[in-house]
């Protein structure tokens, strides 16, 4: 690392083959600046190691430094998006046969912008938040640096290095609060999935590199994989990047790991890390695998994405923990982005450039919007956890009175997650639905029927998300407090409020000007879609002559209607509002301070209709009512449960297989020395044969 530090300034003078001198001077600083910011983030981990409860300034230093770094990421990303991709910057380390290099094209810059936004908001929140365990301070800047390195990688080695740094730093963050058994369980499962993702991506990178004989992206693009090799890369990348992004069926870690981490880290994992995984997926499948994939490449992405959207949306309606609920909503949104990416891939394979830009634009815009509103929602959940002392919905309630700012911001975020116009979530989901409505142009009847089914399921997922957000807001912020601790809640501090208000303002602004954002993302969209996108301007266009969405005009109309209604009613109905005891259908108010909390709808109660309508078939949901017989003096009991299908169908067989394999491997202990040597030799020969085969074929 020290060498890198000394070498970076020198690199300005290194003569290079590509690009004129003037171009070099214009473009070089962007990547050098990015490299320096990443390096500074790495160096932040050094003072962080001296943190502790008695040294509050260390936490502040780390989070302020991260905030500054993330603002730097944003500035660099916007510069790269507006100014064009700078030429790659070689790094002074890397494998001997192919040097590591930094590069930042439009695709990477767009995701760097998402990372910068989510990271800045999370760091600002953490700056005002009481510091968690000191051991979460070291991995936090490393996590940010790892994500940035993944996005700024110019070759496969740097990409995998950044990806693994991100994985392990985030594992350390999930395990930071390891006194609780459930957090240890979450961290263990997270580590398992991270290792699996890393292994799949390394294999995919190996297959790619062996075919092209190089590691850097420009060389890889010239010799894209073909035949079985391309299909194997598709499967491996889907498994590897999908496991990190929370794609169904590899999502089992997400509802465990997100609640276990500190709130600002959950925000970052949900808002930025899953997007980085999607970036890796897009980089491999859209860019490095060449411009011409068959249409069917989009099908697995579309199917898995839509399945994830429905499953995540449904689970979000059944969970009783705020952060788990938000994690399931992340599974849903990642599913929507994946479905959009799959559509873009299919359209591109059919040479429908305009539609491919529509779907790719939907994916990129939703990635950004979700990055911001999910960060906002996780930070609000963190504020609630801090102020009201619980994550469980059934221990919260009525917080809008004690925490009005947090409640208002959370409502805006939930509105965006529920795809309500004119907030940000609606704009990107509008694009996705428009591309699904146009998917019949793919021609093949199988694909058409598939797209129609996907349209129905995406519609269901959007409505399920709205129901989940209604449940979250209605039970946490509205109603009456359900516990004395929740009744004693207070508004969070100044900096935390600033982070929430900033995120809410961004959610609103992104919702009002999606066209400008999409124009900013234009080069990235063109990179994904292989065709030049439309200029959207102020609104969003679904294509030439097709429908348009003008959010600012919608907002204006809504405001005008609100104002007219209010003015009219003030004239026609001048009586002031009066306060009185709650009517509640005529029931007598229970004689407690806040009324009996048990007469309020509970998390399980609100979930009941969807649990019965969809949960029984999709999630094996069960309700058990234990009613005492007449005259029996015990209380009745009601228990509801559900099971994610990935547990019995994927994780349980996997655990059994691991046990069986471990049992077999035990036999290796009894090998004699000669057999052990033979084993090592055979492995070596096999690996060499594999290399020879891959390099040759």
């Amino acid at each position, binding site marked *: 690392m020290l060498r890198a530090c000394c070498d970076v300034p020198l690199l300005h003078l290194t003569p290079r083959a590509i690009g004129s001198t003037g171009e070099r001077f214009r473009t070089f600083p962007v990547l050098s600046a990015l490299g320096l910011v990443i390096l500074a983030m790495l160096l932040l981990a050094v003072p962080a190691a001296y943190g502790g409860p008695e040294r509050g300034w260390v936490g502040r230093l780390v989070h302020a430094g991260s905030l500054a770094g993330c603002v730097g990421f944003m500035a660099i990303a916007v510069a790269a998006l507006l100014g064009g991709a700078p030429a790659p910057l070689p790094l002074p380390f890397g494998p001997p046969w192919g040097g590591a290099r930094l590069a930042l094209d439009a695709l990477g810059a767009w995701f760097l912008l998402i990372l910068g936004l989510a990271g800045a908001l999370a760091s600002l929140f953490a700056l005002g938040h009481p510091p968690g365990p000191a051991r979460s301070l070291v991995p936090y800047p490393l996590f940010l640096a790892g994500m940035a390195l993944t996005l700024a990688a110019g070759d496969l080695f740097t990409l995998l290095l950044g990806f693994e740094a991100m994985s392990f730093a985030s594992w350390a963050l999930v395990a930071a609060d390891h006194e609780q058994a459930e957090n240890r369980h979450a961290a263990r499962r997270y580590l398992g999935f991270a290792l699996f993702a890393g292994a799949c991506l390394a294999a995919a990178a190996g297959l790619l590199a062996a075919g092209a004989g190089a590691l850097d992206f420009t060389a890889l693009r010239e010799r894209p994989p073909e035949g079985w090799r391309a299909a194997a890369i598709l499967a491996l990348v889907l498994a590897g990047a999908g496991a990190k992004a929370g794609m169904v069926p590899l999502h089992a870690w997400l509802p465990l790991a997100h609640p276990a981490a500190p709130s600002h880290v959950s925000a970052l994992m949900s808002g930025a890390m899953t997007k980085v995984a999607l970036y890796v997926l897009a980089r491999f499948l859209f860019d490095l695998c060449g411009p011409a994939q068959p249409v069917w490449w989009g099908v697995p992405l579309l199917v898995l994405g839509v399945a994830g959207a429905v499953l995540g949306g449904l689970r979000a309606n059944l969970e009783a923990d705020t952060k788990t609920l938000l994690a399931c909503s992340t599974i849903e949104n990642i599913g929507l982005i994946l479905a959009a990416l799959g559509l873009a891939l299919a359209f591109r394979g059919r040479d429908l450039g305009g539609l491919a830009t529509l779907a790719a634009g939907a994916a990129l815009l939703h990635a950004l919007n979700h990055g911001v509103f999910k960060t906002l929602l996780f930070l609000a959940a963190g504020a609630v956890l801090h102020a009201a002392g619980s994550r469980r919905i059934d221990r919260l309630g*009525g917080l809008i009175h004690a925490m009005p700012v947090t409640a208002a911001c959370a409502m805006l975020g939930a*509105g965006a997650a529920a795809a*309500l*116009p004119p907030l940000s979530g*609606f704009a990107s989901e*509008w694009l996705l*639905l428009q591309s699904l*409505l146009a998917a*019949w142009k793919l*021609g093949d009847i199988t694909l*058409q*029927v598939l797209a*129609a089914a996907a*349209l*129905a*399921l*995406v*519609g*269901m997922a959007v*409505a*399920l998300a*709205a*129901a989940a957000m*209604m*449940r979250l807001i*209605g039970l946490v912020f*509205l*109603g009456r407090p359900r516990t004395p601790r929740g009744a004693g809640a207070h508004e969070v501090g100044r900096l935390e409020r600033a982070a929430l208000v900033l995120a809410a303002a961004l959610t609103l602004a992104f919702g009002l000007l999606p066209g400008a954002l999409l124009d900013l993302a234009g080069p990235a969209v063109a990179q994904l879609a292989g065709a030049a996108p439309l200029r959207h301007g102020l609104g969003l266009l*679904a294509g030439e*002559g*097709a*429908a*348009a969405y*003008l959010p600012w*005009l*919608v907002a204006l*109309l*809504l405001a005008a*209607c609100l104002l007219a*209604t209010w003015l009219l*009613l003030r004239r026609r*109905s001048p*009586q002031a*509002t*009066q*306060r*009185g005891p*709650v*009517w*509640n*259908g005529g029931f007598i108010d229970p004689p407690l301070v806040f009324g009996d909390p048990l007469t*309020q*709808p509970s998390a399980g*109660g609100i*979930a*009941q*209709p*969807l649990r019965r*309508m*969809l949960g029984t078939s999709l999630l094996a949901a069960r309700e058990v009512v234990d009613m005492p017989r007449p005259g029996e003096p015990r209380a009745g009991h009601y228990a509801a449960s559900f099971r994610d299908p990935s547990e019995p169908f994927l994780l349980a067989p996997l655990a059994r297989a691991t046990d069986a394999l471990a049992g077999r491997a035990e036999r290796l202990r009894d090998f004699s020395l000669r057999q052990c040597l033979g084993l090592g030799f055979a492995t070596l020969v096999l690996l060499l044969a594999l290399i020879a085969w891959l390099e040759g074929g």
Partner: protein
Amino acid sequence: MMQALAAILTQLLHVALVVLAAPLLVGGIRWLKARMLGRRGASPLQPWRDLDKLLRKRPVLAENASAVSEVAPYLGFAACLTALALVPSFALGMALAPLADLLLVAGLLALARMALALTGLDVGTAFGGLGAAREMSFASFAEPALLVAALSFVMLAGSSNLDQIAAALRDGGFGLRISLALAAAAMLAVAVAENARVPVDNPATHLELTMVHEAMLLESSGRHLALWEAQAALRLTLWLALIVAIFLPFGTAPAGAGPLAWALGLLAWVVKMAGLALALAVFESAIAKMRVFRVPEFLGAALLLALLAAALLFVSTGLS
């Protein structure tokens, strides 16, 4: 210039028309149903009188009601009014026609639904939560059916803009297509569910356990209740106008037509809406409310019809 003025004028006339017609439509359906049941029934003007009465009353809010209870009625009403301003009635080519996207209309209705559901949960009463949960659950079955039904006519019109769809289906000479009929059936089922009508919900019920829509309004009174009632009327008008605009586009004045065509279009619209109201009244009188957990089957059938419509179109476009 004249064109733009005519567009603005039709837009204003349209908004005035639907705002005046909405309570009349609700009252008319009630009157028709009462007639069919052998009662005399209240005058179709009764909803207007009710609204006037409610506006003059002092609204009472629960002690622990938050700002949500005060703001949500306005927001829900404004969202429904905005959505209704986009759905063409007697003339095409209104000033807001470029904005009249079907998905946006669905989004605005979802906004109004969210406002209603949060009002139901604001005070923390059991019935409010029950109604909110059921309302949002029904929506998760109604949205897919609506979207797939929309797929059929979006395929034919090439756009999801309501004005373009109405114009295309009016002038396109698609004739009586089976797929359009199936999509219309699906849309009708969705309309029944979205408006909380029999058999999904009973708008006249006073038994809390069977209520969905009304359960969320138990704490509303005065002008807040008036706004919610007016919003429900607007929503019903919107759905019927939507079905009229897409599936019964005959007689609607084309873009840029003169006042004579508007008058004819107005007449045609009134006749078509009255016909749909009669059909709705007959349907509601003939059928019983279904159990809450049968609603997914009802809407699932609508989804299947819509899918069938789309599949027929796929086959027919593939052949030609």
